[in-house]
């Protein structure tokens, strides 16, 4: 076979509306394409995409890395479409899912409800067993009567089981035994046990991720099987890989076992894509801004993406580390309306992708944020998807007119008001979030992607004090790009919950060694599927706190100080002082969790975008309404800019899948990688 075979990588991202494909070789991105998603059979969209690749002359056998991300897991959870699941717990703790962590989602809503558990109380079985906090067996496991209960579950249509016993993170013996028993005798159940899924102390959170895994597992396993069969029949030789919530990848085979690790893979891939772009242009501090039809999400990158162990997915806290992505508000489909005091509101209702904004002429009747963009003149009739998606400005204007009449405004001023309120909404979520993460946005660049991100990104940046904006070359397929450029990555945790002086000589090293060898084995296993690795590395951290505190700090520790308690304390104390400004040199410290992350760096090619248009010398002008007045804006296809040449806003840059709006305060240029960089001029 030909020599280019070694380097073709395909990234696929299955979204709600479109499935994106991105193909890259050693020298850069070969092509990107969008094909409609098929919600009923998500793998079908992948097959359709592969067929399209074939049509374009790609030999699928040349693809040797195929990485794919899907929202199937998260949608199955959020829409509560998983299989009927049972939970086995330690006797006395049947209500672990009912009690949760108590706190109500909305404490001032008398009609509010707490989260409905994924497993109803009647399918939670108490098993007579008890392990103590030290890991000793207080009560041997007694399985009398279990068979009858399991038979009843089968009769009731239960297909999956989660097992989470108290202190199983410390001693998994009972969980292992019962898993073996059930697998042997009742192989029809999809089963997950907490000591394998995420062995961290905190019974609610550990039980929850175990239950989620079982709840979505059956469906995910079936899906991956269909996908692999489908891809193989298309002639694809590469093994299928899946993206993960931590921004890494793993084999589809592993993902089918632990789908809970893929829940946030969609947004995580986008952030990984953004991280690659940031590395490419050499910027360390970036805030990503992914705005689509229904929401706008942000994440913080400090060289690498920020992680969180307090992510919420739908109603549920998920403690497995994931890239920290947070919704800050509305998308392009958010509806503008007046409350009965006549105050203008934007969202939270959204026209979404279907029916979409009025301007799309697909049945939408309420004015959406996108309609305001259209009325300001940011988008023209045949601008999107090479004219395949026609825009109807008159219909948008008519929809805005109805609101404008009530507020005694004209249409352009109405559109301006909608955009201003939407920006203020984002500001209201963005600024407190930054404070929570200790981030001063003025030190960061904003990387805008998604369908509406490049339209609204500059306006948000201006409001929150960000002076530099980056719009990547492929803002509509950044998740697929992130997939294609991801590494193998797995996280491990062990709860020690001990004062530092209680650790024996060599104890911490032993714990870390065990976690690291689990990681090494995992990487070896995954790489055996044919992934080419450049290197393998490990990151170590400790969750530490002063004795008696209720919160921990994550302290990164280098390899050479595992046994140097003073050095570990020093690192903790330094971080503590930075955060709290308080010195507590004499206080006792405890180590709650030990964490190891194993990373297998995959072999990747360059991240380069080829452009097919020649640079133009002059551009047309369009009259737009912005900042309460009419202005002349430059209108240019984004790939027709001269590389490195500085232009002055206001401008509208058009592209296949998005529009970039650049306000008057900004200069902009196209860099050598085809990114558009906007910079606010000094006053």
């Amino acid at each position, binding site marked *: 076979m030909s020599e280019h075979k070694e380097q073709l990588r395909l990234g696929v991202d299955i979204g709600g509306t479109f499935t994106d494909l991105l193909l890259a070789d050693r020298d850069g991105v070969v092509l990107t394409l969008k094909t409609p998603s098929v919600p009923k059979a998500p793998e079908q969209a992948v097959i359709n995409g592969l067929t399209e690749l074939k049509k374009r002359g790609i030999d699928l056998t040349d693809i040797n890395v195929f990485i794919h991300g899907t929202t199937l897991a998260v949608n199955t959870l959020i829409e509560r479409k998983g299989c009927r699941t049972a939970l086995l717990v330690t006797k*006395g*703790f049947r*209500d672990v899912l*009912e*009690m949760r*962590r*108590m*706190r*109500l989602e909305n*404490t*001032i*809503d*008398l*009609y509010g*409800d*707490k989260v409905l558990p994924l497993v*109803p*109380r*009647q399918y939670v079985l108490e098993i007579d067993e008890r392990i*103590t*906090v030290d890991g000793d067996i*207080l009560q041997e496991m007694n399985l009398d009567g279990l068979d009858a209960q399991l038979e009843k579950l089968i009769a009731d249509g239960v297909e999956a089981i989660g097992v989470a016993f108290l*202190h199983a993170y410390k001693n998994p013996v009972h969980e292992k035994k019962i898993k073996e028993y059930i697998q042997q005798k009742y192989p029809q159940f999809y089963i997950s046990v907490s000591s394998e899924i995420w062995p961290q*102390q*905190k*019974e*609610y*959170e550990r039980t929850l991720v175990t239950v989620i895994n079982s709840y979505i597992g059956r469906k995910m396993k079936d899906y991956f099987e269909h996908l692999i069969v489908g891809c193989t029949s298309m002639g694809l030789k590469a093994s299928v890989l899946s993206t993960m919530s931590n921004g890494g990848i793993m084999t589809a085979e592993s993902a089918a076992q632990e789908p809970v690790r893929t829940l946030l893979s969609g947004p995580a891939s986008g952030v990984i894509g953004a991280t690659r772009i940031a590395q490419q242009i050499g910027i360390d501090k970036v805030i990503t801004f992914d705005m689509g039809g229904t929401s706008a999400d942000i994440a913080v990158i400090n060289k690498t993406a920020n992680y969180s162990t307090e992510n919420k997915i739908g109603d549920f806290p998920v403690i497995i580390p994931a890239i920290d992505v947070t919704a800050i508000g509305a998308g392009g489909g958010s509806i503008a309306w*007046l*409350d009965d*005091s*006549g*105050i*203008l*509101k934007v969202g939270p209702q959204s026209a979404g992708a279907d029916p979409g904004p009025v301007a799309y002429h697909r049945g939408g009747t309420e004015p959406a944020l996108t309609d305001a963009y259209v009325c300001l003149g940011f988008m023209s009739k045949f601008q999107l998807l090479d004219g395949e998606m026609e825009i109807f400005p008159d219909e948008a204007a008519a929809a805005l007119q109805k609101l404008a009449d009530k*507020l*005694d405004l004209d249409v352009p001023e109405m559109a*301006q*008001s909608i955009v*201003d*309120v939407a920006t*203020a*909404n984002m*500001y209201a979520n963005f*600024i*407190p*979030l930054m*404070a*929570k*993460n200790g981030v001063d946005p003025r030190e960061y660049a904003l990387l805008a992607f998604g369908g509406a991100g490049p339209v609204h990104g500059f306006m948000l940046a201006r409001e929150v004090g960000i002076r530099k904006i980056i719009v990547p070359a492929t803002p509509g397929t950044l998740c697929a790009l992130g997939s294609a450029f991801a590494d193998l990555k797995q996280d491990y945790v062990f709860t020690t*919950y001990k*004062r530092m002086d209680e650790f024996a000589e060599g104890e911490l090293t032993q714990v870390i060694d065990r976690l690291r060898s689990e990681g090494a084995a995992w990487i070896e296993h995954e790489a055996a599927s044919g992934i080419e690795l450049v290197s393998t590395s490990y990151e170590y951290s400790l969750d530490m706190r002063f004795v008696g*505190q*209720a*919160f921990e700090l994550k302290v990164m520790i280098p390899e050479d100080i595992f046994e140097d308690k003073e050095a570990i304390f020093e690192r903790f104390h330094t971080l503590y002082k930075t*955060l*709290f*400004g*308080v010195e507590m040199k004499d206080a006792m410290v405890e180590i709650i969790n030990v964490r190891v992350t194993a990373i297998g760096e995959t072999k990747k090619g360059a991240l380069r975008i080829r452009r097919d248009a020649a640079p133009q010398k002059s551009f047309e002008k369009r009259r737009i309404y912005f900042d*309460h007045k009419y202005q002349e804006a430059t209108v240019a296809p984004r790939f027709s800019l001269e590389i490195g040449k500085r232009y002055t806003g206001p401008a509208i840059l058009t592209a296949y899948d998005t529009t970039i709006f650049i306000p008057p305060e900004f200069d902009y240029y196209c860099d050598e990688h085809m990114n558009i960089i906007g910079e606010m001029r000094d006053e």
Partner: protein
Amino acid sequence: MNNKKVFTEIFKNRVQAIAEEMANVVLRTGFTAFVKETGDFGTYLISKEGETFASPLDAGYNLSIGLPVKEIIALFDDWAEGDVVIFNDAYTTYGLATHLPDVYLMKPVIVDDQVVAFIMSFIHASDVGGRVPGSVSVTSYDIYQEGIRLAPVKLYKKGVLQKDIYDIFLNNCRIPEQNNGDINALMSGMYRGEERVKELIEKYGLEEFYEGVESVLSYAEDRVRNLIREFPDGKYEFWDYLDPDEDGYPIRIRCALEIKDGDVYLDFDGTDIQSRKAINMATMGQQGHYMIVPALIRYFRTIDHQIPWNSGMVRMVKNNLPSGSILNCEHPASVGARAATFIRVMDVITGALSTARPDALPAAGCGQACIISLSAVDRVSGKRKVGVIQPICGGSGARPMKDGVDGMDFAVGHMRNVPVESTEADMPVLVEHYGLRKDSYGHGRYRGGAGVELVFRNLSPDTIVSARNMERNEFQPWGRMGGTQASLALIYKNEGKEDQLQLHSLDEVRVQPGDTISFYSQGGGGYGDAFMRPASDVKRDCDNELLSVEAAKKFYGVCIKDGVVAEKETEEYRRNNAHDLPEFSFGDYRKNFEALWNDHRQLILTHALYSVPINFRGYVGNMLRKKIEEKVRKGEEVNASDVQQMISEINAGAALQQ
């Protein structure tokens, strides 16, 4: 410039962002568990007139709408850039600080040498000195036992720390480093807020800023008035009780809620006198006070999620809080554990609102939130340490359109529990059971939320167990519109063993290794006729083992045989067993108590007591009650002049001089 209606929304978002941003700075840099776990802190933007125009909803404590700030502002006529005032005292802050652990800071925002606004914040410090660690004990009987008191004083003058004042404060706390950490966190949050308000003024100009402040306040006011107008004008009376104190009598909180043309008047005339226990509320009689109005504003926000979260919401609320009552105590009454009273005030106002709008408000929730804690000898260090086993709430009341929430009530919806695995790692206990309590909720078309059970075994000698703020051991959470009352709390030592002992409170109980404590909390009251509840819903509760098959029959008329609803039998039973559907179901204890102590007699007694010098009221009250009871038992009625006569007799007998 934007249209005024558009600007209001933009300005509201901007100032809300500042309040939330400040709260997040505090959350991030706050030191103690109170900040991280219970979120007991707040950050506010205050107009120069003293109204709160932004208050956080996401982080921190959310129910502090109605903070009286005006008087504190007026205390100083030399507010300067960089000034920060500190205070925590309940009797010199005009109703702002209501117990000593809440330490407040306040600083002016100054533009062009003018005070244009204030930034304020508070944090619940884990200890401010006093008799007991943590400073709060229900048995403290005056405020001097509860910690150091700071009347408003400048902690910073023009940016310079007044170290002498700060040292006096810190030296009186058991955990000075931690408190210093928390105060620093507040300071960081307030600096951020000040910076942001100045940015806002720079962007919009001072005039627009003032206009914006007024527009968000009056926006909130307008929206609330609209909701109030949905209530029929009228006067709605309701009362409820705190459990009997050591003298054997409960404490009544009585409210006449009057609605008239978009205004609300809360008249607490008839509320009992202040207590010797630390459950008094130092509201100083302020209008629309934040310890009084939460049930109101919570209702408003339930109906209209868009109302800006500011003190415009209480502009139309006036209240009468009799001086010397438990809701407006006089110096030096103790106030540390006022949360128990605060929760009951919410029940009372909810009841009164429900009288006006039965279709909109829930039945009573569990009505309490207690913290079960332990003082035990640590197995590693051999020293005594104090730790929380679990905060215990109960079920919420049934709503007019849906069931209550299991194991959680709205009054304390912000509380978080402790993982059992962490409890066992921290304290010498083995938790045997933690979950929902079967057959604990009130029944009805919609049922209340289930209560909570906790059983733990003590593993260490001479351990002291206590449950702070435990309530509703006698007065049941009430049901509404035919719904029944919920169960009471139950506590046992060594339940099911030979030496089983039922306890009636958990103020301080000593236990030895192997002893168990079982704690069963209340459910929420039911709503509507239980016979109207679909049999399938009743069966689901049985399947989930929250309801016994016997109770399904007894309360719902639903006959379940071999796990199947016997439809015909059910229908027949429901048809043949007509039952009363009272407006409110309060349960036997209240019925028995009020058989003698009806509203009339309680009012006569309470009114008479206010004429007695404050320090004699407790004694005179007890004597009076006995005399009145004696008279009533003889079949005679009492009137106001009888009672005055009795007071004279008591005075003469005890040689009390008036």
